[in-house]
Structure formats: structure tokens, C-alpha cells
């Protein structure tokens, strides 16, 4: 079922096309710098956790390639979603809906960067990593943005894989192989995505309604969403402890991941038990906390590994 009629009517009526043309900043905005920072961080953690070392220059170029690939996905997402972006308060000021960047220019920009980033990563590290980056871009743009986002309430669950790949990419760029460790990193980000975006969808429900995007709160209701958030937070809490059980993380990480996992579960139960009046505020709180959660859990894993490797306490 298509909730939004194709990609028609991209430019909202009454908004003049940018007569002065796009600035460099507009093109940078197309790359979604905030999402890029998350991509860079998770990829860096994946890279530094990998058992074999990598030349710092190669590592730097690999991280830049992954960041460019992530940015290219963002540009292609903005190209396709320009019509619905214009309808939501959170996205209506993006460069394409306001007419500062032409849609076709965004498409060319995104395509060029996609190809360049894949080639650069493949040449710099290995073609398994290059191929995985190409698949990540394809998954985010075609599977998530074009196919799932406007059709199913499970859009963010399946589409979450696209955001989870960078951690795996960092590891594969160094080792050239997918083993259980990068898969666990992937799983943590994958399970983190639904509670994070459903919390956003709860307090921005009107936005998604206006754009006719079938987010879970709009399709299945707030109660079902709150229950799903609790379930995914529980799964996230458990999966974040897997590195300890599988032996590639120690007690310090376990304490941090366990503590923050309990925080996620606690806030999601708090959201479930809340009255309708306080729901938006608590959803916003969970959304903010989830950002901190991912950062702290990955940072703890990284710091512990680096400290153990450097024999700091011996």
C-alpha cells in the first residue's frame, strides 16, 4: 500500500526556487552531517576493535570513505523524500524542499559520492568492505527509503540495518572478513534503532501523519508502540551484554552496558506507564537518552579494548 503518491509535487506551492543558487553549506546539509557523525563513530569503533592493526593513513582514508558513503545515502534520501520532507516541521527547511538545491543536482551529487566512496574504500582496504559499503547505500536508499518507508509500519525495524552496517564496515575494512564480533556490533545498533525512532515518532506523530508515513504510532497506535519499545529495549539490553559473554569485552564494559541498558529499559517502562499528557515529554526523554546510550556503550567497548591492549594496568 502506497501511503504517499510516488514522488510527485516535490516543490511545495508558494515557495520560490532559490534564485541565488545553492551554497556550499546547502550541499553539506544534504550529507546529513549529524547522521554522518554517528556513522563515523560506529565505524571507527568497529575498526579499532578489529584484532589486526591497520596503517593510520589507510584507516583515515577508510573512515573518510565510509563517511562519504553515509553522506551520499543521506543526499539520495533527501532527493527521493523531498515531497514528504516539505510536509514535516522537522525536515521542511532542508535544502530541496525550500528550493535552494535542485532535485536533479542532489541526485547527481549523491550518485557521484556513492560511486567515489565505494571505489575509494575498495581500493584502500579490500573489496569486501567496498562491496559492503555499496550494499549499505543500496539498502538505505532503495530498500528503506524507496520501498519500505512509505509502505509498512516496520520500516524502521528493517531499515535500521542500514544504520547498523557502518560498525561492521569498520571491522571488515581491517580484517576483510565478517565474524561474530562485528555481527554483535551490528545487532546492538540494529536493536537500538526501533526504540530510538519510535520515541521520535511518538512525539512527532503529527508530522508523520501530515506526510502520510506509516510509522508505528500512526498505524498501530501509541499503546502498541510503547509495548514494542519496551520489548526492543529489553532485547537491546541483553544484546549489549553479548560481547562480555562471548569474551571480546570485559567487566568494565559489562558494568557500563548493563547500567545504561537498565536505563533504557527503565525509561521505556516509564514511557509505557505514563499518562497521555506526559507521553510526549517522556518519549522525547527516551529519544535523547537513546542517543547517549549508543555513544556511551560503544565508547566503553572501545576504551576498554584500547586500555587492555596497551597493557595499561600491567
Amino acid at each position, binding site marked *: 500500500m502506497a501511503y504517499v503518491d510516488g514522488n510527485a509535487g516535490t516543490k511545495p506551492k508558494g515557495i520560490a526556487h532559490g*534564485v*541565488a*543558487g*545553492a*551554497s*556550499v553549506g546547502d*550541499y553539506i546539509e544534504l550529507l546529513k552531517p549529524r547522521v554522518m557523525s554517528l556513522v563515523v563513530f560506529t565505524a571507527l569503533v568497529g575498526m579499532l576493535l578489529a584484532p589486526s592493526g591497520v*596503517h593510520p*593513513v*589507510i584507516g583515515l*582514508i577508510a573512515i*573518510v570513505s565510509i563517511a562519504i558513503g553515509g553522506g551520499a545515502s543521506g543526499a539520495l534520501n533527501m532527493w527521493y523524500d523531498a515531497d514528504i520532507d516539505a510536509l514535516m516541521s522537522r525536515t521542511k527547511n532542508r535544502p530541496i524542499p525550500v528550493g535552494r538545491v535542485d532535485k536533479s543536482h542532489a541526485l547527481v551529487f549523491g550518485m557521484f559520492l556513492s560511486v*567515489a566512496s565505494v571505489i*575509494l574504500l575498495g*581500493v*584502500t582496504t579490500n573489496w569486501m568492505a567496498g562491496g559492503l559499503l555499496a550494499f549499505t547505500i543500496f539498502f538505505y536508499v532503495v530498500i528503506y527509503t524507496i520501498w519500505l518507508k512509505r509502505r509498512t509500519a516496520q520500516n524502521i525495524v528493517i531499515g535500521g540495518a542500514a544504520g547498523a552496517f557502518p560498525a561492521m564496515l569498520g571491522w571488515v575494512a581491517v580484517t576483510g572478513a565478517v565474524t561474530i564480533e562485528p555481527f554483535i556490533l551490528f545487532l546492538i545498533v540494529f536493536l537500538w534503532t526501533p526504540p530510538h525512532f519510535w520515541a521520535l515518532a511518538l512525539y512527532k506523530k503529527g508530522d508523520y501523519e501530515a506526510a502520510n508515513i506509516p510509522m508505528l504510532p500512526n498505524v498501530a497506535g501509541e499503546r502498541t508502540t510503547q509495548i514494542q519499545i519496551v520489548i526492543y529495549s529489553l532485547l537491546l539490553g541483553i544484546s549489549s551484554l553479548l560481547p562480555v559473554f562471548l569474551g571480546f569485552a570485559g567487566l568494565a564494559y559489562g558494568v557500563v552496558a548493563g547500567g545504561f541498558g537498565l536505563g533504557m529499559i527503565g525509561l521505556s517502562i516509564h514511557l509505557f506507564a505514563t499518562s497521555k499528557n506526559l507521553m510526549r515529554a517522556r518519549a522525547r526523554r527516551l529519544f535523547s537518552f537513546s542517543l547517549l546510550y549508543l555513544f556511551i556503550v560503544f565508547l566503553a567497548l572501545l576504551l576498554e579494548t584500547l586500555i587492555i591492549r596497551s597493557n595499561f594496568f600491567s
Partner: protein
Amino acid sequence: MTEQTKQMTDKQTVETEIDEQEQLRLKRQRRRSIATALGLVLFVLTFFVLTMVRMGPDLFVRPL
């Protein structure tokens, strides 16, 4: 102010606005060109550095 003077002032204001917009357009175009050039230079430099790192000291070990 006569009608003719008013019309001339309006025309001058419109012309000034068009001129400012044109200047802004040219400025943005120039900056985009510089950014593209810098991007290309960085791309070339990246491949140069990558070659150096990949080949290491062997780069200079070759028969004359």
C-alpha cells in the same frame, strides 16, 4: 514626489535588488567551483598518499 520620480525610484530599487541577487548568485557559484576544485585535489592527493603507503619503501626500489 511626482508620479514619474516615484516610478524611477521604484525601478532603481528593483534594479538594485536584481543586482544584489546576481552578485550573490555569482559569489555562490564561485564558492561551489572552489569547493569542487578542492574536492578533486583532495581526491588526487588521497590516491597519491595511498600509493606511497601501499608501496612503502619499495616504491624507489626498481631497476634503472
